[in-house]
């Protein structure tokens, strides 16, 4: 049910970003970029303990009038950002978590692929498939 999904590398450049084509993509790029600040803030605030599942999921980063932005960071500081349309019936937290989990799993699969160099943009059909599945649900 996402409107935009982005994967940001540790160095804060995008590895993968995809929005619903009907929307203004640039706007989402900007949104995701600004959300990175919030992510950084949460990461530093999270502090010492090693990431467990609760901390990987950052929750709602910030809501705007149109949409809400959720964040998730992996242990290697790869960030996933999901932008969800506010007009949708608000998705439950668990659903967002499960979306992030799916993303994380597909991302791991992509990383496992020896032909993929970490740091490259993600060009995996399987990953695309998963992302499309999550976005199509928006309806």
């Amino acid at each position, binding site marked *: 049910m996402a409107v935009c999904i982005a994967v940001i590398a540790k160095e804060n450049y995008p590895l993968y970003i995809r929005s619903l084509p009907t929307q203004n993509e640039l706007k989402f790029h900007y949104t995701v970029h600004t959300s990175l600040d919030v992510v950084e803030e949460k990461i530093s605030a999270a502090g010492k*303990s*090693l*990431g*467990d*599942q609760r901390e*990987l999921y950052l929750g709602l980063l910030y809501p705007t009038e149109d949409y809400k932005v959720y964040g998730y960071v*992996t*242990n*290697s500081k*790869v960030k996933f950002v999901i932008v969800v349309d506010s007009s*949708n*019936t608000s998705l*439950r937290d*668990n*659903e967002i*978590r*499960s979306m992030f*989990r*799916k993303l*994380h*799993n597909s991302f*791991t*699969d992509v*990383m*496992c*692929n*020896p*032909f*993929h160099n970490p740091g490259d943009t993600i*060009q*995996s*059909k*399987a990953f695309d*498939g998963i992302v499309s599945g999550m976005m199509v649900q928006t*309806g």
Partner: protein
Amino acid sequence: MFYHENGLQCLVLTRPSVTELCGAKRLGYFGTPQFFVALKLLAAAQSALPIHLESITANLPLPRFVGLKTEPEMRYSVVPPSVDGQGAQCGTGTGPPGSVSWTPADRRHPEDHVDRKEPWSPPRSPCSSPPRSPLPYRGSSYAKQSNGADSLTAYESKPSSRPTVHPDQRSSPGSYATRAATERPARTSSSERLDQQGLVDDPEDDPWRITEEQLEYYTNQFKSLQPDLGALILGTIAKNFFTKSKLPIPELSHIWELSDVDRDGALTFPEFCTAFHLIVARKNGYPLPESLPPTLRTGSVQDEDEDTPDTPESAEPLIVFKDTEPRTSLTNRSVIERLTEAEVKQESCQRDVGVTTETTSPEQRVLRLAAFTERTEPPQDLDPHMRTRTRPRSYSSTSIEDSMKKAEEPPTPPPRPQKTHSRASSLDLNKLFQQGAPGIKSGWLPTPPALPPRPSTSQVSQFIGVSEKTPQKKVQQPNFADFSHFRDEEESSVKPEDQGRDLATASKQDVIGVPPSQAPQKPVRKKYHAESQNLEATPPPAAPFPTPTKPAPRLLSKQKREIQTAIRKNKETNAVLTRLNSELQQQLEVVHQERVALETQLELQRPLAST
């Protein structure tokens, strides 16, 4: 399918006789000789001769096949997963002469695919209906097909050789050899001519099926990379190897995604064959499929399935083939050999009555997991094409232990269920469900060798420390060393578990008093010994030790212990399944709510639309 284009042949082949006669049924697939014999039989049937092997020797006209299609169309129809090719390809015909071997290939693929799984007749019925479809492509004789041979350009084989092929089917093997020689140079290394030749056999078979020669070639290649056929090829090694094929990296990446079905970043032998085969296919011009074709998938999986029913007697098959199956929590590539060992033990443990035992491998995995950062571990619902295992991943070792401890605490009745958790899949299930991965395949769940019971063993060791039976257990320990089929790591966890269970039975019999507790422990030991026999078919050499020490009157109590153990195990299984059920119910609720939300949205929009 292919055969059904001919009305008569439909009937002919509904009789299993043709297949039987040509030996295909025995082999389970149509090899080259079988195919030729079958065609001969068809010709015989068409000439109204009785169907016998002798009739083949008669001078038969070529069997006539109607409903021929041009080669490119057929190639196109071949490429999509040909499981449903039964319907799609019934109407297609053989274009060029080479495609005569084509269509049997793609026909045969669904046939064989089906043959292997079902009796002969059921596939017939679905096939007889589709021939209604499109026989606009009438071409009938092989001579005509030679025109289509020119359209084989993409295949780059010499068309001129083709028309000479079919007039004499029996010499086709030779023609295939010539065709092989004309195959385009796919790779630079001369050894790769062999796999080109192997690929040429594909049109006769199915492009996604690995033939014997190819399999042999792949085996050799695998051995050159990794001498042990059962071990894994690391991703980097495989990458270097496949890069030599000079395919573009995105395609190689896609091939990898297709072939690494267990998603562990390394290739087992079947996966390697799959990947190699896809590369070969790609070099020969086949577009890459979006999902793994069934023959490749089943081909890779069948190796494992074939050995699954093998008795667990010898460790050898376990090592070779079982390693793929339980590799659900494989994470660290660098300890793959240890993993293989671990999986062997794990598989052997999984042969227990219904309870998966997590012994050493989880412990090993804990160590590896601690080294891991990136991986997450809910069991994942892979794509339907990747029908194999989901990979439970852990977010971190700390969370695993936390969740496991939580899982262990709720089942309060003290020794027994906690011991369950120390070994059983219920632990794993709890953790899996806590991470709440949707769409878990329930059938798969009872078996996942998931996660590290390190706290569990510590917990059990607490048992040992606490119990007053400690000295007696210490006595037992050297006996357990006789269980040679468990390796050392297993023993260390097996022993505590068994001792834990001893504690349970002993505690039950506290009423009896301390001295008889010696007796229950002996039968418990004996019972565990019986269990270990379940795990490993060969009786452990430890067998001698309990029997001489056990007096005869103990037999009854021993049986009682056995029954109690069985009861306990059933209860454990029940608990596991109950939890599974409840988790699935929760997920169902979630899905329901989503659905309700969507429906309300829809309704909201409908009045809007009307206004």
